[in-house]
């Protein structure tokens, strides 16, 4: 088990390195750097000035070296100008050439400075991750139990009326991406001119103009049911359908197994067959799926935060990408890649742990 975890960790690190390098490469492409130079210095720079600016700021050296610097595995560059002023990667924020550390990269906790927000990347990330954490928490709290219950209920009697109804719901919800369900939910529940809100308002049942709020900006300060329900529901809906279908498939497969017949013919009641014999075997597969859902949830987060204007991680990512904020985008990528890899690791270990056939062989 230990060896297995170590091996997985090794592969994970390798993956993380490869991925961050790809992101580094893609964000540091020549056109992006040119754009950066123009936005940092002057928009009307000539091509020679751009080259000069890039050279002065250490962007012209080999890509691998720059990646190493960003990572913190290679000492940051320093450069002595003709006037004797020493500039360098690590020399900023009031540090001088003497007091500045030799290495300043991700490993040292120095994630750079955002050009859009004019703040250190770490600060922006921790703030936005906190906001997204709440969103994810409520999404999980809604999505996991609902989807598992739906999946088990429809899978335990394949082809029954309950199964048909629940399966149709699950298929419909997987066919509805977040930007569609978000729009429809806002129109139905959070629009002043359409859906049910005008009706409720005219009856005097709600105080404001709309039942739910169509934006979640206010949730940055205080999360309430009325400002947070729509974004949570939007992300959860897509996941619920997907996980419920997986659970159903797994459950129907388990229900056809010989050992379920054995249990039934032993005189075990239907409820007990489900609870004691089927559930544990049926939930192994969905567990993996839930964990592997994270990359997709991240997608949903980006869409929903943009749609509902909630300034979390996804919103930050869009801002960084849209405004060529290289350091911030790199930071976002590192976080995203690690979230994905760690959930994969948990899913692998959990799978082994849940499955005695693998655990004890």
């Amino acid at each position, binding site marked *: *088990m230990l*060896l*297995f975890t170590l*091996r997985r960790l090794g592969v994970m690190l390798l993956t993380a390195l490869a991925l961050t390098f790809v992101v580094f490469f893609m964000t540091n492409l020549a056109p992006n750097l040119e754009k950066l130079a123009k936005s940092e210095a002057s928009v009307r720079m000539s091509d020679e000035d751009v080259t000069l600016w890039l050279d002065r700021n250490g962007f012209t050296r080999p890509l691998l070296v720059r990646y190493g610097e960003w990572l913190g595995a290679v000492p940051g560059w320093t450069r002595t100008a003709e006037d004797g002023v020493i500039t360098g990667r690590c020399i900023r924020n009031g540090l001088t050439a003497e007091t500045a550390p030799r290495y300043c990269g991700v490993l040292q906790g120095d994630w750079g400075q955002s050009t859009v927000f004019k703040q250190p990347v770490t600060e922006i990330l921790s703030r936005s991750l906190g906001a997204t954490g709440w969103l994810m928490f409520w999404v999980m709290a809604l999505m996991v139990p609902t989807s598992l219950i739906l999946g088990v209920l429809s899978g335990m009697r394949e*082809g029954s009326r309950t199964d048909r109804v629940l399966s149709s719901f699950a298929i419909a919800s997987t066919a509805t991406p977040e930007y569609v369900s978000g729009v429809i939910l806002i129109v139905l529940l959070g629009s002043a001119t359409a859906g049910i809100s005008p009706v409720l308002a005219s009856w005097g049942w709600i105080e404001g103009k709309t039942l739910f709020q169509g934006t979640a900006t206010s949730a940055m300060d205080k999360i309430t049911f009325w400002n947070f329900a729509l974004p949570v529901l939007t992300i959860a809906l897509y996941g619920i359908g997907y996980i419920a279908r997986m659970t159903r498939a797994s459950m129907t497969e388990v229900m056809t*197994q*010989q*050992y379920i*017949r*054995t*249990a*039934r*013919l*032993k*005189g*075990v*009641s239907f409820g*007990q067959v489900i609870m*004691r*014999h089927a559930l*544990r*075997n049926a939930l192994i597969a969905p567990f993996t799926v839930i964990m592997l859902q994270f990359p997709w949830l991240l997608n949903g987060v980006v869409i929903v935060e943009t749609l509902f204007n909630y300034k979390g991680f996804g919103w930050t990512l869009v801002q960084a990408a849209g405004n060529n904020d290289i350091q911030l985008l790199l930071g976002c990528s590192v976080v995203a890649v690690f979230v994905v890899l760690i959930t994969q690791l948990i899913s692998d270990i959990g799978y*082994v742990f849940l*499955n*005695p*056939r*693998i*655990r*004890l*062989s």
Partner: protein
Amino acid sequence: MSDTTWDPSKPILEIENLSISFFTRLREIPAVMDFSCTVMPGEAMGLVGESGCGKSTVALAVMRDLGKNGRIVAGSIRFKGRDLTTMTEEELRHIRGSEIAMIYQEPMASLNPAMKVGEQLAEVPMIHQGMSRAEAWALARQIVADVRLPDPDRIINAYPHQLSGGQQQRIVIAMALMAKPALLILDEPTTALDVTVEAGIVDLVKDLGTKYGTSMLFISHNLGLVLDVCDRLCVMYSGEAVETGDVRQVFDKMRHPYTQALFRSIPLPGADKNSSPLIAIPGNFPLPHERPKGCNFGPRCDYFQDGRCNAGDVPMSVVPGDDRHASRCVKWAEIDWAAPPKAGKTTTKLEPGRLVLKMDDLKKYYAVSTGAFGGGLKKVVKANETLSFEARENETLAIVGESGCGKSTFAKVLMGLETATSGQIMLFDENVQNTPIQSRHPGTVSKLQMVFQNPFDTLNPSMNVGRQIIRALEIFQKGSSDADRSEMMLKLLDMVKLPRAFAERMPRQLSGGQKQRVGIARAFAGGAKVVVADEPVSALDVSVQAAVTDLLMDIQRENRTTLLFISHDLSIVRYLSDRVMVMYLGHVVELGSTDQVFSPPYHPYTEALLSAVPIADTRVKKRRIVLEGDIPSAMNPPPGCPFQTRCRWKSQVPGGLCEKEVPPVQVLAGGHQIKCHLSADVLAKMEPVITIAAE
């Protein structure tokens, strides 16, 4: 429980005129028609028939577990006088597991992989007797000891996958016995197990039946096994019971043409491929919706009389004088049952020709990584150890052994799918041990071909039959044009006695036996000289087995083929092979002509194997030798002689030599080889396992 009104002298199970149908979107498919049988307390009833005859459906109907599509459309099933067909789910639940228990074919599949064995056992008394958890576990431990499993404390705390197949089946039996049921239903309980393991399970079932006085409904396709276990028997054909009665009376005095044909198509001692060949039942098993009018067996029956056998439904008629013996045949009283079969074509024995295949000291080792998560230590599995033998033209060499004995690896190395670790293989004067199949000349490849075991797997499901044979011809560079090859393909279909129209069919439209014939045609497309047949008939029904075996023999005679016949079934091996090689855990333990191997002196393993094979002949007397334990894993073989862990002769070898050294090969009279430490005089004193009582 509620059996106060039941009189123990009455039958425990009475099935009357039971009819069961499955309903699909298109039609109703009758699976069982007008089936009746009675099981008395303490009696063991055998249900015998080929696949698709409805025997398992009957068992599931008794449990009332026919699934969504199955329904009992007529008749009654009375258990201790109460009709099961009208019971509610709740009433049934009290009977299932406590009064009627069932044992299934696949032990691994019938145990819950995520629950400990003890928990699965203890559940039964906890549900039915309301026993406390601790008591139930104690009882589970005791029953586990009862089914003769070693170290019950460890076993009840284990998960099913930690046990071997034989142990798992014992656990399933223990589970069935937990509530001391009055009726035990066994659905092919040993089919998935090796013969020597099967013998132990059969012994156990018989003893427990006597000990607890349980009645049994024993479902099997194996007539020999039924003779071993049961008191009474019911032969089924295509959804109907065709003959029922006392086991011995039916075996010795059969009164239905199907039963007779069945016995004539299985290789019993005394059958011989040259002088008294098997007689296959002509035609095919009718599909449920294509059953003929009148007698279902009519179209395949030698005694068929038009206008009488197909006039209308045939009822069961009692055979007077016997114990509850009945037959579903209108002509049974007129048929001369003692008449010998119409003489089949007899042939003369072929003399072996030149040497075509010689293996010398062949070894095949695999490096396998241990540990579940990859990495870990590399371990060497010795799949084949010092394999030496020769095979000649025209000869049939049988390779016998149970799972893990290395026979499949041997086939792979010979075919060139794997290369040997060391040793030599001479194939037609060519050394091929290190030549993988891609580097072999097409001529060599086409001369050495293989027939596979599983008929459902041997043909590509998405290519029609003709195309598959033509592809083999193309690859073997036969024929000069497409038209030429197409003609050759049709000739090959003729050779395996399939209609030419089959060329256009897809494999799923063929029966198992027909697929196997296509497989044979494909193997002989390039004029194969050496054919490895890997259990070619073991997955087929008995009546089809005879026909396919016959076909192989015919083709061999025509083409002067060398046949390497891999099998675990000693009956068929004795019937068709000239020489026999017995393998155990990668070693050849015995090699000799068929007569030498089937008569003493034996290798101790061959002796046990011979004793374990059930024989459907009441005249045969067998010495019962039941091996302890299971076959060791090839990953972790015992030191010294591979068979020493289960050998009953071990005490006869002085100095614990068996545990230290791999025995040498002793060459006895007539070139008979035995790999054993036993001294020549001990071997000479061995007695035959099987004797046929004089009539």
